[in-house]
C-alpha cells in the first residue's frame, strides 16, 4: 500500500508562479523517503498541498488510500507535519502546545497526556514542559515541532527541513529518533538541504526542480551511478612538481595539497601504491564533495538542460 500517492499535481500561485507542474509521486507505506531540491524547487508547495496548508490548482492526492478532496478529514488524521519555519504561539507553555495539537486532532485527553509525556521525555523536553515557548532555544523548538507532529501518532510524518540550524549533536540524536519511529512502522518523508542526512537516513529519494520530479529512485542505485569520486590529499612535505601516477587524474592545489579523481575501476589501494612509489607521504584524506551532493547537482543541471 502507498502512504502517499500524488497524480498530475499542479499549483499556480495567485501571482502567476507555477510551483508544481503535473507532479506524479508515490511513497510506499513504511518507507523513509527523501525529497530533495534547490530552494524554490516546489518541495514546500508539494508538502503544503499534502498537509492542507496550500490549495492545489489541479491533480489528485491520496494518503493511505484516502482522497484529499473526498475525505479530507481522513487524510489529515493520518499525517503529522514538521514545518520548515516555527509556527508556535510563543506565549504558551511547551506542554500546552503539544496537548492543544492532540486536542485539535481529537485525541482523548488522557491518551494525549501520556503520549505527550512520552514524546517530551524522548526529545529531552520534559523538564522544560512548563516553560513558555519563547524561552526555548532554536534546537528545542525544532524538537518540540517533532513532538507536536507525532502526538496523535500519525502513520505518515512529513518533515520539512527538520534539522535546519540545529547543531550536529542534536541533529544526530534527532536522526536516531526518526530512525526509531520509522522502524516502528511510520512512513517518513523528509526534505533537507543536508544531503548527508538523506544519504544516511533514507531508502528512496526524489529530486524535484522547477516544479517537476527530475528523478525518483532508491539511494543505493543513485549512488552506484556515480562514476568518479574526488579526494583531497593533505601531504607531508612540499611537492615541487606534479608527479605522474599511472591512470589517476591529479590536480595540485598548493604545495602540500593534491586532488585526485578515482574512477569506478580504480581503487584507493592502487592510488596509495602509486603515491608510495613516488615517495609521497599522505597525512590525511577527505572527500572533496559529498557523493550525493555531486549526484544531486548533476541531476539538477541535467534537468535544467532538458527544460531549456
Amino acid at each position, binding site marked *: 500500500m502507498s502512504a502517499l500517492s500524488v497524480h498530475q499535481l499542479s499549483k499556480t500561485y495567485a501571482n502567476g508562479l507555477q510551483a508544481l507542474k503535473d507532479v506524479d509521486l508515490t511513497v510506499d507505506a513504511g518507507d523513509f523517503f527523501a525529497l530533495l531540491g534547490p530552494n524554490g524547487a516546489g518541495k514546500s508547495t508539494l508538502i503544503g498541498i499534502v498537509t492542507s496548508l496550500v490549495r492545489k490548482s489541479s491533480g489528485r492526492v491520496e494518503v493511505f488510500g484516502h482522497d484529499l478532496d473526498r475525505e479530507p478529514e481522513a487524510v489529515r488524521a493520518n499525517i503529522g507535519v514538521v514545518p520548515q519555519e516555527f509556527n*508556535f504561539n510563543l506565549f504558551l507553555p511547551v506542554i500546552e502546545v503539544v496537548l492543544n495539537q492532540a486536542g485539535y486532532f481529537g485525541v482523548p485527553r488522557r491518551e494525549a497526556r501520556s503520549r505527550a509525556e512520552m514524546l517530551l521525555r524522548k526529545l529531552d523536553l520534559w523538564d522544560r514542559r512548563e516553560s513558555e515557548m519563547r524561552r526555548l532555544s532554536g534546537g528545542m523548538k525544532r524538537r518540540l515541532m517533532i513532538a507536536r507532529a507525532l502526538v496523535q501518532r500519525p502513520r505518515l510524518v512529513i518533515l520539512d527541513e527538520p534539522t535546519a540550524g540545529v547543531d550536529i549533536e542534536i541533529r544526530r540524536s534527532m536522526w536516531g529518533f526518526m530512525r526509531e519511529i520509522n522502524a516502528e512502522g511510520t512512513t517518513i518523508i523528509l526534505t533537507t538541504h543536508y544531503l548527508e542526512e538523506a544519504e544516511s537516513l533514507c531508502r528512496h529519494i526524489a529530486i524535484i526542480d522547477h516544479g517537476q520530479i527530475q528523478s525518483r529512485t532508491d539511494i543505493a542505485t543513485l549512488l552506484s551511478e556515480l562514476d568518479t569520486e574526488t579526494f583531497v590529499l593533505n601531504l607531508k612535505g612540499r611537492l615541487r612538481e606534479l608527479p605522474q601516477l599511472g591512470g589517476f587524474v591529479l590536480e595540485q592545489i598548493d604545495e602540500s595539497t593534491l586532488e585526485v579523481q578515482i574512477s569506478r575501476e580504480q581503487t584507493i589501494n592502487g592510488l596509495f601504491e602509486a603515491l608510495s612509489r613516488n615517495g609521497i607521504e599522505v597525512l590525511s584524506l577527505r572527500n572533496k564533495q559529498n557523493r550525493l551532493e555531486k549526484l544531486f547537482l548533476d541531476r539538477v543541471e541535467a534537468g535544467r538542460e532538458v527544460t531549456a
Partner: protein
Amino acid sequence: MSQGIHDRGPLIDRNRWRRYLITFSTLFSKEVTRFSRIWVQTILPSAITTTLYFVIFGRLIGDRIGPMEGLPYIDFIVPGLVLMAVITNAYSNVVSSFYSSKFSRYIEELLVSPAPNWIILAGYVAGGVARGLTVGIVVMIVAALFTSFSIHDVGVTLLILLLTAILFALGGFINAVYANSFDDISIVPTFVLAPLTYLGGVFYSIDLLPQPWQTLSLANPILYMINAFRYGLLGVSDIPLNFAFFIIVLFIAALGYYSLSLLRRGIGIKQ
C-alpha cells in the same frame, strides 16, 4: 518491516462526534485561558469604563437630564452600557486571537488537523461569547452598585446577551480573516462599531431624535439589540421584540454563512 505501534493508526477518537467535541473543547478552553490570563487587558477595562459612565452620565449629569421613557436616566443607560461591553469584548476577543494565530502562523496547527471548518469557527466564536458574557456580567454587577438594577424578563435578557455576543464574535472573525496587520484589527471597532453603538440608543430613546435621524436609526442593527435588551432588563423598548430577534438571527445567519465560506476558500490563511 516490523509491526510497530504506528501500524495501529492514529490515536484519535474513532467516533466522529466525540472527536469534534474534543476539538471544540480544546479550542474553547484555549480561548478562555487566553483571555483569563490577561484579564487586566481583557476584563478590567470595561468594568472601569462603565463605572466612569455611571458616575459621570448617571450621577453627575443624569440628575439634570431627568427621566427617559419614564425611567431615571441612570437606569435607562444600564442596558446599553452592558450590551456595549458585550459587543466590544466578543468582537475584540475573536479578532485579536484569530489574527494572532494567523500572524504567528500557529493557525496551521488547526489547518493540518482533521477539524472541520465549522468546528474551528464554533470554537473561536464560543471563546468570544465567553469573554463577552463574562464582561457583561461584570458590568451588570457594577450597575447593581449604582442603580436600582433588576431584570424584567430573564429569558429575553439571556437570549439577547447570547445572540449579540455570537453575532459580534462572528464579526470579529471576519475582520481577522481580512486583516493584514495589527492596525487592521482596530479599524472596524473604531470607525464602525463605536459609532453604531453610540448612535444605537445607548444614551437616548430614538423618540428624541428629529426626522430623518429617527428613521435612519432604524437601519442600525445595534439599535434592535439594545432595545430588545432594554426590554429584557427594564420592560421598555422603542422596537417590537419579535422584529428585534428576527433582525439579530438574520445577521447571525448571514455572517455565519459568510465566515464558513471564507474558511472553505482559505481566504487569508491558505495560499
